[in-house]
C-alpha cells in the first residue's frame, strides 16, 4: 500500500460514529467503484457494503484482495462514511468528489464541510 493510501486508512480508522467502505478503481477503465454486499463492485456508493467493525472490514479486504488478483480493481483502500437520512456520505471532501463521479461541485461547493 502506498503512503497516501496508508494515511487514508489511518484517517478512516480514526473516525468515530462512522462506518467504512472499501473503494478502488476498476482496472479496465479506472472508474471509481465500491465493494458491494454480493462481493461485486458498484459505482454507486449507496449500494456499497459498510463495515461497522474491524472484523467485517478484514473480511471485506479479503474479498478485495481476490478482486485485485483477478484483475478487476486496483488501488483498494477503506474510507470513512457517515450514514445519514438521505444515504451514505463520505467523510472527506476528496471521497465526496470521487463518489460524485464528476468534477467541481459548483452548485454547492460552499456547503461541502470544509
Amino acid at each position, binding site marked *: 500500500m502506498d503512503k*497516501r493510501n496508508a494515511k487514508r486508512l489511518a484517517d478512516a480508522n480514526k473516525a468515530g460514529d462512522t462506518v467504512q467502505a472499501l473503494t478502488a478503481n476498476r*482496472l479496465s477503465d479506472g472508474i471509481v467503484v465500491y465493494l458491494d454486499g454480493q462481493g461485486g463492485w458498484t459505482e454507486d456508493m449507496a449500494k456499497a457494503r459498510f463495515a461497522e467493525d474491524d472484523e467485517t472490514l478484514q473480511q471485506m479486504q479479503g474479498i478485495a484482495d481476490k478482486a485485485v488478483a483477478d*484483475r478487476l480493481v486496483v488501488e483498494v483502500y477503506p474510507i470513512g462514511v457517515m450514514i445519514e437520512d438521505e444515504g451514505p456520505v463520505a467523510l472527506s471532501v476528496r471521497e465526496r*468528489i470521487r463518489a460524485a463521479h464528476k468534477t*467541481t461541485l459548483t452548485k454547492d461547493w460552499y456547503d461541502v464541510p470544509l
Partner: protein
Amino acid sequence: MYRYDEFDNTFVRERVAEFRDQAERRLSGQLSEAEFKPLRLRNGLYLQLHAYMLRIAIPYGELSPRQLRQLAMIGRKYDRGYGHFTTRQNLQFNWVRLVDMPDILDALADVEMHCIQTSGNCIRNTTADPYAGAAFDEIEDPRVWCEVIRQWSTLHPEFNWLPRKFKIAISGAAEDRAATEFHDIGLRIVKGPDGKTGFRVLVGGGMGRSPFVGKEIRPFLEKQHLLSYLDSMLRVYNRYGRRDNIYKARIKILVHELGIDKYREEVEADWEANRKESIDLPQAEYDRIAAYFEPPALAPRPVRDEGVDARRETDPAFAGWLRNNAKPHKVPGYTSVVVSLKEPGRTPGDASSEAMELVADLAEQYGNGAIRVNYTQNLILPHVAWSDLPALYDALAAGGLATGNNELLGDLICCPGLDYCNLANARSIPIAKEIAKRFEDPERQAEIGQIRLNMSGCINACGHHHSGNIGILGVDKKGTELYQITLGGSPKDDASIGSIIGPGFRAEAVPDAIDTIVSTYIAHRDEGETFLDTWRRLGAEPFKEALYGAR
C-alpha cells in the same frame, strides 16, 4: 513545424505496439500492477482521482490544425468531449480507459504525436516562448533548439532514470515568456560580445515544496556546445542528485546544497573532460532541423485597417480583446492572437472538442496554419493579419473563445486540483470560477491592469502559485480545505517567489480576500505602477492591514 522522418515514424509506431502488448499482458494477468505502473507512466498514463488520465506531449507547445483536430476526435471518441491544456504546454484527457489506450496512441501516431516521457524521472517536454517565430522582440527562434533537445533527450540512455523529473525551458526573445527561471534548466538566447547568439544558462529553478529561482551557471554558452554542456549538467546531477528522498531529489536541491559555484565547477570539469567525445550537433544536422522552422511566407498586409479602427470605436468588447489579446508581431501588418480559454465560469485551460475544431479551422483560415499552447493555459494563433481581426474575433466569439482578458486578472492559471488530481489536497477549479465571476466586469479588470493570479491545489505547485503576483495554495488543514495567499511572485525576467501574507482563508472567503488585495493595490499605487511595483515599494504591511487588520 518539424515533421517526422522515417526514423521518427517507425520509433513511435514501435512504441505503440510495445504498449499494446504491455496493456494486453496487464489485462490478462501476465503483468502485476506493480510491474505495469512504471510502463504506463512512461507513456503518460496516470491513475487519478476519478479515472485514468492521459498526458499528451505537445513539443514546445506547437500544434498543427490536423493535430488539434485529432485531439478533438480523441476527446470525443475516447473521453468526455474535452481536454485540459496544462501549465507545461501539454494536453491531458481525464477520463480515458486503459482498454482504449493502444488505439489512442495509434491515433496520436497518425498525426506525429505521442505521450513518451510525459511522466517519470526523465527529461520531459521542453517548453518555449509560445510566440516563437512571431514575436517582435525575438532574437532567435528557440524552436530549433527545442527540437534538437527533444531528439537528444528522447530515450537518452544515460538520462532516462534520473533522480527525479527534469524540465527545460527556452526563450529566444528579450522578454521571458517561458518562465525559464523556474525550470531545472532555463535557456535564454542572448547576443554575445561579438554579436553572435548563444545561451545564457540557468539551473536549479523550480516550484513545488521548495521553490527556487534559477541561478546563472554560464552567462554565455556558444550555441554549438549546447548538447555537450547539457550532457555535463545532467551527468553531474545524475551522479550527485539524491535518490533517497523524493522531496530532495530535484536538481534545485542539489544546486542549493552544493552552491552554484561548486556545481558549476563540477560541470565545467566534466565538460572539459568529455566534450571532445561528446555529441555536439554537426552544423549540417542543425541546418536540417532549422529548415523546418523557416518563417511562413506572410503576404504583405496593411499595418492599419479601417475596419479594425471602426470596430474598435464602436465595440468595447472588441476593443478590449484587441488591446489585451492581439500581441505585437515581427512582420508589419500581422499580430499574434491569444485565444482565451478563460471565459468566466469555465475551467481554466479546458477546451471542448468543438472548441479545438473551431480553433483548427480558424488557424487555417486566418492564421497560416499555426497554433501554439501557452503555459498560461491559452491557445495562440501566432500569425494573423491585422485586417482579419474583426472576422476572427466574430468567429471566436461564436464559440465562446473571444474573452479579452489575456494577462488580466481573469486570465488566472489553475491546476486541476482535488477535482481531478490524486495528489491534490484542496480544490482549485471552483475557487478559480468564483474569482473569475467576482472580477467578470471587463472595466474592472481593465482598471486593475496586468496582473498574474496563479492557483495550485497542493504544494506540488502545478498551478505555479509561487510565481503569481497573487498566488493561492490549497492545503488540507486537519480535514479542512484552507487557502494560503502569497504576494509578490513573478515568472518573468524579474522572477521572484511570492511571500505568504498571513493565515489562510476558508474557500468561501477567498474571493473577498482577493478583492481586498486588489483594492488595496489600487488605493496605494502610484501612476503607472503594476501590482508588483506597488508590492515591492510598499511591502506586505498595507495588504496585511487590509486583510487582517480587524482580526
